[in-house]
C-alpha cells in the first residue's frame, strides 16, 4: 500500500511577521519525486526548511511517515527527523575527504557497514576514483555528487534538494540529473526538489507543485502541468505561450481568428470572451491551409525554427516548425491550429 510519506495539512508559514505561505495542503507518496516550483520568494525554501525542521510552522500539521513532526505544539528537531538536505552551496565538509563526507551521517554503523554503503553510493554516482580527495580538489560537478551521496547515505525518510543543479552547466546537468533520478528510484527515496527550471522539473519529477501567492496553485504530473495549466502564470512558467482571443460558440466550439476550433467549453457560457492557450507546438505549418500569418521573427534551434507570427488581426503567436522549412521575415506562411483539448482562460486567471 503506497502510504503517504509526507503529509502537509493546512500549513501556514510566517517569517518575520509576514505570512509567506497560507493553507498549504499536499501529500507525497513514498518513493515519489516532487518538484516545488514558483517565482522567487514564493516560499519554496521556507516550505522545505519547515519540512526539514529548520523553521517551525505557524499553524497546521506536518506529518512524516504518519508521525507528527510539527503541529505547533509538538516539534521534532532537525536532528531527529532524519531528513536529508542538499543546499545550493553544497556545504561539503572541507576538512574531510569525499569518503569521510559520505559516511558522516552513519556514525551509528560499524566501520564495515559505513565503507560498504559509501562504496555503493560512490559507484552509483561515478565518484569512486576520488574517494580520498578533498572537496577543494574536485570539480563542481563531482562536489555535487558527493553532496548527494552524503545526504542519501543514511537512507533519509525524505530528501530535500534546494536548486541542486543551478550551479552547473548544461552538459553536466544532463548527466547528473539522470544519475540522480536513477539513484533515487533505486533507493526508493522520497524527494522534494526546488527548481526554477521547467526542464529539470519535467525530467526529474513524478509530480510538480506550483507555488504562488502563498498557496499551491497546481499539484499535478509534469504532463498535465504543461498541457492543462490552471492559470496563465503556470502556463507562462512552463513554456512559451500565446493567448489567442476567442468567443464561445457553443458547448463544443469556439470562434477564433484562425477559424472555428473544436473542443470542450463546459466551464464557460455561450458568447463569453475567453483566451485560448496556444503552445508553439499547437500550431503547425501547413502550406495547404487557408489560414496564414506573417513571419515577424525567427530563432534557429537546430532541429526546429521558432517562428513568431502575426495574425490577420495583429495578434501574435508562436510556432515550432521543423527547420527545413526555412522562411524569411515578412513572408506569409500557411498555418493550422492542431489543438487536442482547449485550455481556456477568462481574464481572472
Amino acid at each position: 500500500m503506497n502510504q503517504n510519506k509526507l503529509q502537509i495539512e493546512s500549513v501556514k508559514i510566517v517569517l518575520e511577521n509576514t505570512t509567506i505561505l497560507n493553507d498549504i495542503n499536499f501529500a507525497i507518496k513514498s518513493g515519489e519525486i516532487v518538484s516545488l516550483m514558483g517565482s522567487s520568494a514564493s516560499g519554496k525554501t521556507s516550505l522545505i526548511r519547515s519540512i526539514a525542521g529548520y523553521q517551525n510552522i505557524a499553524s497546521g500539521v506536518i506529518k512524516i511517515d504518519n508521525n507528527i513532526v510539527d503541529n505547533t505544539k509538538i516539534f521534532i528537531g532537525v536532528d531527529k527527523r532524519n531528513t536529508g538536505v542538499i543546499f545550493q552551496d553544497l556545504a561539503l565538509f572541507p576538512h574531510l575527504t569525499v569518503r569521510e563526507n559520505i559516511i558522516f551521517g552513519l556514525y551509528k554503523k560499524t566501520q564495515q557497514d559505513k565503507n560498504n554503503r559509501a562504496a555503493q553510493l560512490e559507484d552509483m554516482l561515478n565518484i569512486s576514483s576520488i574517494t580520498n580527495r578533498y572537496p577543494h580538489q574536485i570539480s563542481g560537478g563531482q562536489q555535487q555528487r558527493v553532496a548527494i551521496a552524503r545526504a542519501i547515505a543514511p537512507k533519509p525518510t525524505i530528501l530535500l534538494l534546494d536548486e541542486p543543479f543551478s550551479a552547473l552547466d548544461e552538459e553536466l546537468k544532463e548527466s547528473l540529473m539522470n544519475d540522480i533520478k536513477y539513484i533515487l528510484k533505486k533507493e526508493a527515496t522520497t524527494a522534494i526538489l526546488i527548481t526554477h527550471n521547467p526542464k529539470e522539473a519535467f525530467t526529474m519529477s513524478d509530480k510538480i507543485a506550483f507555488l504562488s501567492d502563498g498557496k499551491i496553485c497546481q499539484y499535478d504530473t509534469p504532463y498535465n502541468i504543461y498541457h492543462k495549466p490552471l492559470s496563465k502564470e503556470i502556463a507562462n512558467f512552463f513554456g512559451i505561450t500565446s493567448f489567442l482571443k476567442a468567443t464561445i460558440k457553443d458547448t463544443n466550439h469556439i470562434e477564433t481568428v484562425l477559424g472555428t476550433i473544436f473542443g470542450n467549453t463546459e466551464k464557460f457560457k455561450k458568447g463569453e470572451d475567453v483566451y485560448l492557450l496556444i503552445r508553439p507546438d499547437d500550431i503547425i505549418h501547413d502550406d495547404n491551409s487557408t489560414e496564414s500569418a506573417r513571419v515577424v521573427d525567427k530563432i534557429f534551434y537546430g532541429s526546429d525554427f521558432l517562428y513568431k507570427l502575426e495574425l490577420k488581426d495583429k495578434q501574435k503567436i508562436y510556432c515550432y516548425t521543423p527547420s527545413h522549412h526555412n522562411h524569411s521575415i515578412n513572408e506569409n506562411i500557411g498555418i493550422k491550429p492542431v489543438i487536442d483539448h482547449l485550455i481556456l482562460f477568462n481574464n481572472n486567471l
Partner: protein
Amino acid sequence: MLNKIEDFNFFILSVFLIIFIVPILFIFLNIFNDASETWIHIQNYLLHDYIINSLIIVFSVAIITILLGTSLAWIVSMYEFPGVRIFRWLLIIPMAIPAYVNAYIYAGINETSGILFNLFEYYLGMGALIYDLYDIRNIYGAIVILSISLYPYVYLLCLPALANHSNSIFEIGQSLGLNRFQRLTKIGLPIIRPAIIAGSSFVIMETLAEYATMQYFGVSTFATGIFRSWFVLGDESSSFFLSSILLTIIFLLVYFEQISRGSKKYNNPLNKVSPMRKEKLLTNKKYILSIYCFIIFSLGFMIPLIQLLYWISYTIQETDINFIISLLKSSSVIAILTSIIVVIFTINVAYIVRTSSSLFNKISSKVLSVGYAVPGVVLAVAVIGPISWIENILPEVFNYEPKSLLTGTFVLLIIAYLIRFSTISLKTFESGLNKISKNYDLISYGFGLSKLQTLYKVHLPILLPTIYSAMILVFVDIVKELPITLILRPFNFNTLPVYLYELAESENLSSMGVPGLILIIICLIPVIILSKGIIKNESK
C-alpha cells in the same frame, strides 16, 4: 638595462638581508664562547625558573586564549542574543590595550589610587580589605593579564574562518543527526582549526616576548632573564645564550605553524556563501551569552578604561599637557618615519619576489619576514652587540678617536624597528600583490612599460589601500612598542610607553591616566578600521 635593475635589486636585498641576519647570527655565534661564571650561576639557579615559568605561562595563556577566542567567535557567529551584533566587533577592541598597560592598570586597581580600593573605602570603609585581598603581581596575575590582552587575536582569526562557511555546513550537520555539541566538535572546531593554530601561535610568540609585564609582576621568564643578565649581571654572553634558546624555541614554533597551515583545504571550495543564519535563542539562556560577552569586554577594555579615567579625574590639573604632547610627537614622528621606510622597503621586496621568483629572492623574503618572531629584548641586545663591537674596532683599524657613530642615534632604533616590523608590512603586501592577477603585468609589458613603470602606473594605484593599511599597522606597532625603545633610544627621546614604564617603576600609577588614555586611543585606530573591515567583508 634589465640587468642593471636585477643587479640593483640583488644589491638592495643583500644589504637588507645583512642588516637582518647579522644580529641574529651574532647571538647564535656566541654559543661557541666558553660559558662564563655568570652563566654557570644562571644555569644552576635561574635557568630552571626561566624554563618552568615560561612553560607554565605559555601553556596557560594559550589554553585560556583559545577557549576565550573560540567560544566567543562561536557564539557571536552562531546565535542571536541580545547585543550580539555590537559584541561581535566590540570583543576585538581589547586588542588596543597593550599587555603592559593592562598590567599596570590592574595592579593599581586595588591599591590606594585604584577604583576598587576607593569604592570599597568610600562606601564601606573597607579599603584595607581590598588592598590585602589579592596581589596580582605574580605568575598567576601575569597569566590573567596576558590572556585578556591576547585573546582578541584568536577571536579575530576565528571570526572570518567561521564566516567563510555559511551555516549550511551546520544545518547539514543537523540534518545528519548531530546535536548542538556534536556540531561544535565535529564540524565547527575542525574548520576553524587553522585559525586557532595561527592565532595561538601568535599568542605564544607574544607571550614569550613579553617583557614589561613580567618584570613589573616579578615573574622570571626568558625575556626578563635576557634583560637581567645583560644589564644587571653585566654578562652579555649569558644574555646571548638565553636568547639563543628562546629564539630556537620560537623559530621551531613558527616552523610548525607553517607546516600545519599548509593545506588549502580549509577554504570554502565554492566561492559563493549564503549568509549565516543565526539560531535565535528563545529561552533565558540567551542572557547568559550576553553576560559572558559583557564580562570579557569589561575585563579587556571597560574596566581598564574606567580606571584610566579615574586616574585622570584627579591628576588632570597637575598634568603637564605639553610634556605629554611632546611624548606624543616623539612617538608619532619616529613611528611615521619608520613606517614610511618599512613600507618602501617591504613593497620593494614584495615586488622583487613577484616579478622574479628566483630561489634567492624567495629565501630572502622568507628570512625577512621572520623578524616579528624575535622578541624585542633579544633584538635590542642583538643590535647592540655588533654595533658596539664595530664602533670599538673601527677606531683602531682606521686610527681615529673613538666616538659613537650609530650609538645614541635614531639609526639603531630604526634598524631594530625595521627588523621587527617589516614582517607585518611584508605579509600585507604579499597578499595584496597576490590579489592582483599577473595578467595585469603582462598587459602592461605588452604596452611597452618596464617593470618599474608597471609598479608605479599599475600596481601602486591598486595597492593604495594596502599601503595605507600596512602603514597604519606598522605605525601603531611602533607607537606601542616598549622593550626595544627602552633599550635603544637616543638622547632626549621619550615615548608614551617608556614614560608609562618609568611611572610604573616609580610607583606613580595615578599619573598614567592621561598618557595611558592617549596611547590607547592611538592603538584603537587600526583596531577599529580592522574590525570594520572584517565585518564588512563578511557581509558581502
